[in-house]
């Protein structure tokens, strides 16, 4: 009898997992993918929408159409998972029994958890570009903005794509200069962290970029309230940052059903997950991939991509009753748009900081690590096509290994321990 595999979520992680499992297991498995809608959003594209560089309608495709034939796609809202009974309960009363469950539901935005954020001014003077609606509304407001205080803020970690708000700041600087109004705008970057980025080597490189673009940096600012009408960000310890236009990244949490499912998630609704095997702690036949897992990586599509290899191997092993492999190393890479048609590329894992060098081939690259270049920018733009045609279908890419590699990277002197990844 075929094994029943249920995958919750048809975003980056769920889709590429379904496609790779289908290819690997064939008719040995019946794969069902559940999502609440049929709109697969290319999330990296959101960053460009506010600047009119990307168009909202180009970023959405059918979820079902990204799945290989033979995979069952089901529309439905998940009510809860009963891991003890290996059953998923949908809101319409349907019960889905499974032999293996993969949670790939990503992270959700929780703007209503910050006092005042969704009150007066929401989508008028206070925005987020983390949704299609928000990014589109912001585009129109930004087009009219020609003087005053523009504040970009992170309420608190964890967030998806932690570099996106920095990229937004760089692009805003470029956009305002191009329009000839940059000298009438004060641009401020506000973060709950104690530096611009969470990794020490990046933090040094990126803090310099901020200063070079005349972007003020406010650190350790824990936003307690957004006063949209009064144009103030207020921290829990009573500091204030005034704004005319606020672009914020709201609090994130896991999918709501995770918290309704006994033993499944942590206190923020992310899945308690083994960071090497990607097996959930709640039960041996539950796995997690992508943003929904509470592994200490960035919440980013590249992580889901690199994690898939370990996940697929371990699902196969679990079904065969074999021991799991502990091969996921936290490999992450991301492009960082820095404006003026340039970008940086960073590549790191659980242990190793982003280092300068070339990727993926030593000395040749073609991509430069931790350094601005035009080619990195072009690669970031080309990535959208790669995403739909290579990454989601689960095709292997020659020369691009899932495991982090020191090849092509320059060793740096050891960094002080207290600047490590854990924050």
């Amino acid at each position, binding site marked *: 009898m075929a094994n029943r595999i249920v995958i919750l979520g048809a975003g980056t992680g769920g889709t590429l997992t379904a496609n790779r499992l289908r290819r690997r297991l064939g008719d040995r498995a019946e794969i069902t993918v559940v999502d609440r809608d049929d709109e697969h959003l290319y999330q990296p594209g959101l960053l460009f929408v506010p600047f009119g560089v990307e168009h909202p309608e180009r970023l959405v495709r059918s979820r079902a159409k990204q799945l290989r034939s033979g995979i069952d796609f089901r529309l439905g809202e998940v009510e809860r998972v009963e891991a003890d009974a290996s059953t998923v309960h949908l809101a319409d009363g349907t019960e889905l029994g499974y032999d293996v469950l993969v949670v790939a539901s990503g992270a959700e935005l929780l703007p209503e*958890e910050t006092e005042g954020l969704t009150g007066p001014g929401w989508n008028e003077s206070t925005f987020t570009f983390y949704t299609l609606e928000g990014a589109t509304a912001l585009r129109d407001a930004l087009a009219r903005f020609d003087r005053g205080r523009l504040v970009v803020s992170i309420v*608190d*970690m*964890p967030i998806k794509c*932690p570099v996106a708000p920095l990229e937004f700041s760089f692009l805003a600087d470029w956009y305002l200069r191009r329009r000839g109004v940059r000298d009438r705008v004060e641009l401020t970057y506000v973060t709950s962290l104690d530096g611009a980025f*969470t*990794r020490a080597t990046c933090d040094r490189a990126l803090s310099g970029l901020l200063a070079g673009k005349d972007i003020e940096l406010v650190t*350790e600012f*824990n936003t*307690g309230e957004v006063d949209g009408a009064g144009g103030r960000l207020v921290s*829990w*310890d009573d500091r204030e940052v005034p704004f005319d236009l606020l672009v914020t990244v709201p*609090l994130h949490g896991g999918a709501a059903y995770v918290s309704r499912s006994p033993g499944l998630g*942590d*206190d*923020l609704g992310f899945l308690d997950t083994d960071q090497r095997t990607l097996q959930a702690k709640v039960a041996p036949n539950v796995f997690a991939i992508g943003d929904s897992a509470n592994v*200490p*990586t*960035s919440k980013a599509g590249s992580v889901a991509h690199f994690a898939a290899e370990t996940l697929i191997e371990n699902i196969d092993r679990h079904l065969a009753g074999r021991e799991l492999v502990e091969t996921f190393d936290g490999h992450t890479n991301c492009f960082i748009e820095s404006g003026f048609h340039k970008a940086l590329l960073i590549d790191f894992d659980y242990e190793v900081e982003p280092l300068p060098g070339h990727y993926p081939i030593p000395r040749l690259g073609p991509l430069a690590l931790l350094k601005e270049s035009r080619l990195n920018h072009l690669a970031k733009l080309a990535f959208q096509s790669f995403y739909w045609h290579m990454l989601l279908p689960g095709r292997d890419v020659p020369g691009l290994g899932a495991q982090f590699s020191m090849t092509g990277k320059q060793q740096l002197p050891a960094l002080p*321990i*207290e600047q490590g*990844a*854990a*924050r």
Partner: protein
Amino acid sequence: MSALTYSGAPVEVDAEGFLQKPEQWTEEMAGDIARESGIDELTDRHWQVVNFMRKSYLDTGSAPSIRTLGKASGVPIKELYALFPKGPAKLAAKIAGIPKPPGCI
């Protein structure tokens, strides 16, 4: 990792002074760690948070985030910042004798 002495007892701590073995912690130590961190006296409200923090860690193996503290400890976030200035979750964990919360990247 290195060794420190609080209230006459040796404890293992990390580079930032977080206890690595919660079982080495005593209530007297909490007062010592608090004073070193600039909190002169632990009030009942402080203790409510410290005890919640410790119990959560011992029950679940991980320290609660500031958002969970605000929702579940009985002390609102605003007051948490007044009681434990700068980083309530981090400071309360230190005083509660549990390892540094991993936080996020």
